[in-house]
C-alpha cells in the first residue's frame, strides 16, 4: 500500500527546457521563438532545413509584419523599463488583433491595413493574412520545436530525478512548454519499468500514475457531470512503458 505517499504536482515553464533542449547551437527559449517568427532570413533558414524547400510568400509576409511589429514594440515603450523585452507572445497578440480588425471591417481592404501598419514590399500588398495562415505558421514553429532534444547526460539526470520523485510522491506533471522534454524523460525511465501501464480513460474517472519500485499507484478522479459529455475529446495521461494515440473528434 502506498497511501503514505504525498501528492506532488510538478509545473514547468520555459526555464525548465531552455537550458536543456538543444538543436544545433540553438537553445529553446523565448528569444529563439521570437527570431523564428520575426526574422525573415532566420525563418527562411530553418524552413529550408526542416522542409528542404523555400517558404511561401504568405510566410514571408507574416514574418515581415511580425518583424515590424516587434521593432515597433521595442521602440515605443512608455518607460525605460529595461526588463521588458517584447517577444513572440506580444507579436502574436498584435497579429491576431490585425486579423480581427480585418474580419470586422471586411469592406476595408486588407492590403490597406498592412500598408498602414508596416511598409511591406509592394509585391506583398495584395496578400491577406488570415487565421489559417497564422495557424500554418504555428504548425511550422512546432515542427521546428520538435527538432530540439535534450543531451543524453541531462536526460539521464532528469530521469533519475523524476524516478526519485516518484518513489516519494504520486506525481502529476503539468507543463507550459510545447517541447518533448517530459515525454523523453519518461521514455528514458521507461526501460526500467516494464510493468507500468498507460492511463487512458478520463470518463471512467480513474487514472493511473507511475510510482517507484514497480508499484502502480492508482488514483481516482471523478469528473463533474458537465465534463462527461461527448465534448471530452482528449485527456492524455502518459504513464510509462507504452504510448497511445487518442483521436480527437472535430
Amino acid at each position, binding site marked *: 500500500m502506498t497511501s503514505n505517499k*504525498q501528492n506532488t504536482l510538478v509545473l514547468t515553464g520555459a526555464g525548465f527546457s531552455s537550458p536543456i533542449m538543444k538543436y544545433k547551437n540553438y537553445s529553446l527559449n523565448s528569444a529563439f521563438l521570437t527570431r523564428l517568427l520575426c526574422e525573415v532570413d532566420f525563418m527562411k533558414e530553418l524552413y529550408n532545413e526542416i522542409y528542404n524547400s523555400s517558404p511561401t510568400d504568405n510566410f514571408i509576409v507574416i514574418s515581415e509584419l511580425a518583424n515590424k511589429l516587434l521593432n515597433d514594440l521595442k521602440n515605443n515603450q512608455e518607460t525605460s523599463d529595461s526588463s521588458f523585452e517584447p517577444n513572440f507572445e506580444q507579436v502574436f497578440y498584435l497579429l491576431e488583433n490585425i486579423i480581427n480588425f480585418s474580419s470586422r471591417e471586411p469592406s476595408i481592404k486588407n492590403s490597406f491595413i498592412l500598408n498602414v501598419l508596416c511598409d511591406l514590399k509592394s509585391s506583398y500588398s495584395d496578400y491577406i493574412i488570415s*487565421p489559417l495562415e*497564422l495557424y500554418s505558421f504555428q504548425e511550422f*514553429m512546432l515542427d521546428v520545436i520538435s527538432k530540439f532534444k535534450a543531451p543524453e547526460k*541531462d536526460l539521464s539526470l532528469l530521469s533519475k530525478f523524476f524516478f526519485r520523485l516518484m518513489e516519494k510522491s504520486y506525481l502529476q506533471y503539468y507543463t507550459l512548454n510545447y517541447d518533448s522534454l517530459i515525454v523523453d524523460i519518461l521514455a528514458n525511465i521507461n526501460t526500467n519499468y516494464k510493468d507500468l501501464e498507460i492511463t487512458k480513460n478520463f470518463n471512467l474517472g480513474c487514472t493511473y500514475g507511475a510510482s517507484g519500485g514497480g508499484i502502480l499507484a492508482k488514483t481516482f478522479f471523478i469528473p463533474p457531470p458537465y465534463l462527461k459529455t461527448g465534448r471530452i*475529446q482528449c485527456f492524455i495521461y502518459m504513464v510509462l512503458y507504452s*504510448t497511445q494515440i487518442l483521436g480527437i473528434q472535430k
Partner: protein
Amino acid sequence: MFYLHGSVFYTDSWDTKIISFEDRKLISPSSRNLMHSLGMPKPNNHINTDGGYKFDQSFITGLNKNIKLTEEPYASIYAKFRIDLYNADKLLIFGYSFNDEHINAIIASSPPNLKKITIIDFINNDINIRNNYHRFLNNVLISVKPFGHGQEVELWNMVGLNESRIEVNKNYIYEEDHPDYWEIEYDLNGTIDYLTRMTNN
C-alpha cells in the same frame, strides 16, 4: 502528464487531430495546403460573439488566452489541473516566471492540502523573473491563503531572499507555528544544479 499550452504532439492528421507521443511527423505548409484542398478539414475559424475570430491554435499564445482555454482539450486539462492542485500536498515549480495570469489565479486558489511550494529557476541574474516572483507572491499568494491565528504576518519576510530567508528559518517552524501558511522554498542555483543535488542525496 498534461500540456497546458499545447505541444509538438498535438497536430493535424489526415482527417482529425491527434495527440501522439511519437516523433512529430513534419508536414510542410505547402503539403498541408494540398491536404486541405484534397478534403482534409481545415482548422476551425469561427467568429466569436464579439465579432472577432476564434483562432484555432496549434499552441496557446497571443490574444485572449483565457478564451482559447475554454476550448477542448484545454478546458478539460485545466479542470484536471485545478483538481490535482486541490489534492496536492506539494507544488514543485521549475522555470516558471509567473507571467501567465490564468495559471497564477489557479495556484492562488488556496488549495487546502498544499503545504509547500518549491521554486527552482535561474533567477540569479534575471531581474525580471525575480520581480515577477515578488510581485506574484506579494499580490496574489499572500492575499489568498488564509492566515492562522488571526495574525497578519508579512509573508514577504517568509519568502524573501537571502537574509530574510535566514530570519524566517530562525523564527518560524512551519508545521508547528503556522500550519495555515504555505512554506515557500527558493532554490537559486538553477535547474541542473538542483537536479544534480537532489538526485545525489
